[in-house]
């Protein structure tokens, strides 16, 4: 496949998944979507010749950030139970 077509496709995917993040109103499922979104951004950075950023984006966006969100949600849930 032509590289430009591939680039266009992945850009459209990013736009679509970004929209999905916003419209996933349940935060727990949203964390999962965000994880995919982060991964996809990382892949996009690789394709657009930015390996340094891709590496940190995958580490941060696909792992650290969703984890933080899940932990925050778990704390909220626990606070709810305590009530």
């Amino acid at each position, binding site marked *: 496949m032509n590289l*430009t077509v591939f680039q*266009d496709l992945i*850009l*459209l995917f*990013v*736009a679509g998944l*970004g*929209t999905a*993040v*916003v*419209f*996933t*109103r*349940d*935060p727990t499922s*949203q*964390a999962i979507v*965000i994880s995919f*979104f982060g991964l996809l*951004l990382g892949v*996009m*950075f690789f394709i*657009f*010749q*930015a*390996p*340094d*950023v891709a590496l*940190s*984006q995958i580490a*941060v*966006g696909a792992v*650290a*950030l969703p984890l*933080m*969100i899940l932990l*925050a*949600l778990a*704390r*909220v849930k626990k*606070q*709810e139970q305590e*009530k």
Partner: protein
Amino acid sequence: MTHLPYAVAAWLFIIGLYGVASSRNLIHLVNCVGIVQSSSYVLLLAIGYRTGRVAPVFSDISPKTPAVDPIVQALMLTDVVVEVTVMALLLGLAVQIHKRHGTLNPDRLTKLSG
């Protein structure tokens, strides 16, 4: 599709703002702020990209090979770190708000009106 990346950046920015404006859950809201942020990645990436050039890493290739713009990539790296820190702070605030207000719904936070 020569301007597609710019359009995607604008779309992410606006849809992220929409998410923030219409959110019913503060954690969801924080995640939407993250989407606004990712708009700046796409924009910077598009501005730094040069058709037909390689990544600016010269360990295996001649230093004279034409490469894409390393400056914006450095800016993006900064941006990524900034994102994770801002999100950590915002999530922390959201958790504490839930602890004190007992809700994550911004419609029910009425402490500061007027």
